[in-house]
């Protein structure tokens, strides 16, 4: 059974009003809360029993899998190893996410170690949201790791979002992109108070005509801190771009370190990065359309993190 807090978390991280349609696996406090498989999507525990294996049959189209995680138990630090096998020529959406409800002074944490094997011609959209709520004072910690292996002519769009309540986050993304495959990663992180978030990315454009676009949008409120690192390495004729922007609202501090490494003469790699306050001309424009200063700030941030 899911209670009111679970419902709130599911809404927050997976946009679910109740149990999802299609295949799903809901994990709560380190144990299985509910699972449903479909004709084309199988979910089962891995051999060690410390995670699940999600198999998507070749040719599966327009199906989705929800795999949210709920954490409400004080002192629990849950680590889970999940493997996703995305079959040839399939086209699916996976909605993951972790929501922490902290009601005590003890810390709570979740580390989701996800490994994706995206087969030839497959298309994946992966949406992951992290959030933490609750009146407790314990630290809320989320340390996700995502490893992506893409075969040929596959495409993956990863939306990784953390919009509040998480005290400490250490993210690690790693990808190896095969010939003709395209990987888009968009990371959106908002921190406040004394929160800290770090994201490290190792992206390898391994196959001919592989493409990647890594986008990071950071908003720092209060005294929070965010660091973003990307190493984009080209081993073949390929195209890669990194775009990282950070808006510092108050006294936060940010490091953004995009690195491009061309180990092939036909690699085309570019990056753009910016850190700063909200641009004055944006505020003026929205105020000239009738928004107050605070409303204008909110609209700009909303759009930036959209």
């Amino acid at each position, binding site marked *: 059974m899911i209670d009111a807090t679970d419902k709130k978390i599911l809404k927050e991280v997976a946009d679910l009003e109740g149990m999802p349609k299609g295949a799903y696996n809901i994990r709560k406090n380190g144990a299985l809360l509910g699972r449903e498989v479909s004709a084309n999507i199988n979910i089962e525990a891995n051999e060690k029993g410390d995670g699940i294996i999600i198999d998507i049959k070749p040719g599966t189209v327009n199906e989705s899998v929800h795999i949210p995680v709920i954490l409400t138990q004080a002192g629990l630090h849950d680590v889970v190893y999940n493997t996703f096998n995305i079959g040839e020529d399939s086209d699916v959406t996976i909605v993951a996410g972790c929501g922490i409800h902290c009601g005590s002074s003890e810390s709570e944490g979740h580390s989701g170690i996800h490994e994706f094997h995206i087969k030839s011609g497959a298309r994946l959209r992966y949406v992951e949201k992290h959030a933490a709520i609750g009146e407790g004072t314990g630290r809320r910690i989320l340390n996700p790791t995502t490893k992506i292996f893409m075969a040929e002519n596959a495409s993956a769009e990863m939306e990784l979002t953390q919009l509040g309540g998480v005290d400490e986050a250490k993210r690690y993304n790693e990808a190896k992109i095969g010939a003709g495959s395209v990987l888009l990663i968009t990371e959106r992180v908002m921190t406040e108070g004394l929160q800290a978030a770090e994201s490290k990315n190792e992206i390898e454009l391994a196959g001919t005509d592989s493409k990647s676009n890594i986008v990071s949008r950071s908003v720092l409120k209060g005294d929070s801190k965010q660091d973003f690192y990307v190493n984009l390495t080209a081993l073949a004729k390929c195209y890669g771009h990194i775009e990282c922007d950070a808006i510092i609202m108050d006294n936060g501090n940010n490091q953004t370190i995009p690195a491009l490494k061309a180990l092939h003469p036909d690699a085309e790699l570019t990056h753009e990065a910016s850190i700063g306050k909200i641009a004055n001309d944006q505020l003026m424009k929205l105020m000239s359309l009738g928004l107050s200063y605070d409303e204008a700030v909110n609209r700009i941030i909303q*759009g930036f993190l959209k």
Partner: protein
Amino acid sequence: MLELQNIVFKAPDSDSESEAPSLKTIIDDVSFKFESGGFYALTGPNGSGKTSIAKLIMGINELADGKILFEGKDISNLPIDERSKAGIVYGFQNPARFKGTTFRDLLSIASGSDDEDQLAHIIARVGICSLDFLDKPVDSKLSGGEIKKIELATVIARNPKVAIYDEPDTGIDLWTIGPMVDLLKREQRENNTTTIVVSHNKAFLEAADTLLLIKEGKIGYKGDLEGAKPILEDLSVCTFSDACEGEGNDRCYR
């Protein structure tokens, strides 16, 4: 309707040789009354103070002295958003570019509605933007002409009593300038919009009922185009506007 009373604007003097920060007078004791429903063109050499006057009216620049009255009320100390709510709207010379904000977002804010039909109606009324513009992000990928059309549409979407357009033709192709002038004239005629255009462009100067020729922070001439022609022939042609326009760099290289 809109009255400038002895307005003065000062900005930090970047040319000053003294170490102490000093201020330079950009607008020097200007008074003028804009009548309701009139079409005014502010013109003059680069760095003369045209944009500064327009920004003072919108509240983007702060008055050093004098008063601005709008519909009988002193708006000199009102912030930008309150002047906008009172009915004054400004189309920027270099419109802001955003990340993640679309034309639809701006148009919804401007018109106060996100209703699809209403937005389509505004686009039809403006005429120079196509419907597929709606979901375009207003970011650095837009061309100079596209962003100026969007800027103009957001001003019109507010149904302003006073619409100020700062060099609306920058980046616009020659074939669009005619329709743009027609649009502003139509808005003036049908909605009685008091229209103030900062421009060097002959098409806008011809469209205006009254020309204000700004020179060295003062109104050098006010009246019709005929009367201004002898002075304009001397002053108006400038090919350096991109290089030296704006109060950030208030120098004329002519």
